[in-house]
């Protein structure tokens, strides 16, 4: 603080008296929580047995594996890779669609201010439960119903999707700006009218964004589903990785990357189209 008085002053703006701000408010809880979290993280880092020195060679190793994979990719595996990619995409699509259809109404019922408290509680529990069950276990339960078919994969993805989409959904709904909701209330709108004209116009871009992202996740989740035998590009990738056929892995990766980048670009374009209003100009 002493520095304030010696700070060079210009003749112009300086008020006659030195300006002292009010005392900084203290928030003991904040300090306690920050310290607690920091200490916990440090303890965890300290307690885990990891030889960090091993990461030194990582760049060289990465270069070596990249060379192994991409110096001479096994192009002959590409047709099969494309077929398996289609498998992944179709399971992802059906799973995503089903997940959306089911989670969409549920996420509204689970949002504060829309669903009655008991319903909300049950639904949130359900979403959490689904997210707690490992994918493979969900797949095995469904497998006993629909067998070792891609349908099982799609259904497993759908069930899984309900957990995440439901959670994202009610979070997005609760996060919308309250103004338009208030306007609907003030005009005498009922609960579902509020949902349609107070919430949905605001939350729709987020929803679409989550749906597209979920689709992307589903395409990649086929690695796990591949284990049970329903195929997919992820399964092919891990299999060849386990057998260390790097040229094939390289070719597969090229396919995967092209496909997922294409999905990302498409979804980005769709999202931009929806949120157009908040478009930002690039400035000099």
């Amino acid at each position, binding site marked *: 603080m002493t520095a304030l008085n010696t700070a060079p002053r210009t003749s112009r703006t300086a008020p006659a008296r030195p300006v002292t701000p009010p005392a900084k408010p203290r928030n003991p809880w904040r300090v306690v929580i920050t310290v607690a979290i920091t200490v916990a993280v440090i303890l965890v880092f300290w307690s885990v047995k990891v030889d960090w020195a091993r990461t030194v060679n990582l760049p060289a190793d990465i270069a070596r594996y990249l060379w192994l994979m991409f110096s001479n990719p096994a192009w002959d595996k590409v047709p099969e890779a494309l077929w398996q990619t289609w498998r992944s995409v179709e399971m992802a699509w059906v799973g995503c669609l089903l997940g959306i259809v089911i989670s969409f109404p549920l996420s509204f019922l689970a949002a504060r201010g829309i669903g009655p408290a008991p319903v909300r509680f049950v639904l949130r529990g359900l979403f959490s439960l689904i997210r707690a069950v490992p994918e493979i276990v969900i*797949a095995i339960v469904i497998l006993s119903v629909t067998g070792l*078919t891609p349908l099982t994969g799609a259904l497993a993805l759908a069930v899984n999707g309900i957990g995440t989409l439901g959670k994202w959904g009610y979070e997005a709904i609760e996060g919308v700006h309250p103004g338009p909701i208030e306007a609907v209330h003030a005009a005498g709108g009922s609960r579902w009218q509020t949902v349609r004209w107070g919430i949905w116009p605001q939350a729709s871009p987020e929803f679409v964004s989550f749906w597209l992202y979920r689709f992307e996740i589903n395409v990649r989740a086929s690695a796990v589903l591949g284990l049970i035998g329903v195929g997919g590009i992820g399964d092919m990738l891990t299999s060849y990785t386990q057998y260390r056929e790097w040229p094939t892995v390289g070719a597969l990766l090229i396919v995967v990357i092209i496909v997922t980048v294409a999905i990302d670009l498409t979804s980005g374009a769709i999202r931009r189209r929806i949120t157009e209003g908040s478009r930002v100009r690039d400035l000099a």
Partner: protein
Amino acid sequence: GTGSSASPEAIKDPTELTLALVPSQDQSGLVDTAAPLTDFLTKELGITVHGVVSKDYQAAVEAMGAGQAQIGFLPSLQLWQASDKYGARTVLQTERNGNISYPAQFMTNNPDKYCDDKPVERDGKLFCNGADALKGPAGLDSIKKIKGAKVSVLGPGSPAGYIYPMLALKEAGLNIDTDIDKLPVTANDASVLAVYNGDAEVGFSFWDARDIVKKDTPDVGQKVVVFALSTEIPNDGVTLSKDLSPKLQDKIAKALEDYSNTEAGSKVLQSIYSITKLAPADPKSLDVVARAAKSLGLQ
């Protein structure tokens, strides 16, 4: 998917069959499809047979239990579980290069400690303590020295990566809970690499998992020495769901066995499953696995 559980008296055979093939860990190639095999069976049985390659043991067994798969090519422990849990019948056992069984191997990167003799080289890989016989059991006297060492082990469902080596240690007088420092891995190649990289002093795997990682680490045969082999583990085999009538079961078993005896059939089986022959199963040989698993307190 087809079929549903049926009462034993009046079994109506399904109009479609599903064959679940779980790749065995000790095969060198990669199984993508069981198509040649299912094509053959479809023709032979007059019933459409779909093939599915599943890499998850539990998924395959549960599929058989729920009537979603009727024919299973499963590893030994799962063969036994399918029959124990769901009444499936193990009909055939596979033969590789004339063997109907295979050993688990104990590997080390510290041959000075575990080898009583000088390691010898076979096919570019080192063995000691007579493990170069390539037939178990061998060198089991030396495994007492594992006490206190860091050991890479697979999941408890793996006969070669867990059950048999652990049983051997137990029989050698070690307490498997306290006497060794377990480094869990989930695949045989990882177990080899753990020893190769020095993360573990000793590792378990099927014989000879070093071949898998040889492509990346050509010197694995020199750095990782196999110093003991466990008693022989039964090969994988073919099991049939109880949803099938005994008549159809026999028909399938016979068709497969005959197929493996033809030169063309043997070639197909070799290509997709690295087996040379299918022979009638001896259910008792599976009991060994079950007993091994039980004695480790896993059931």
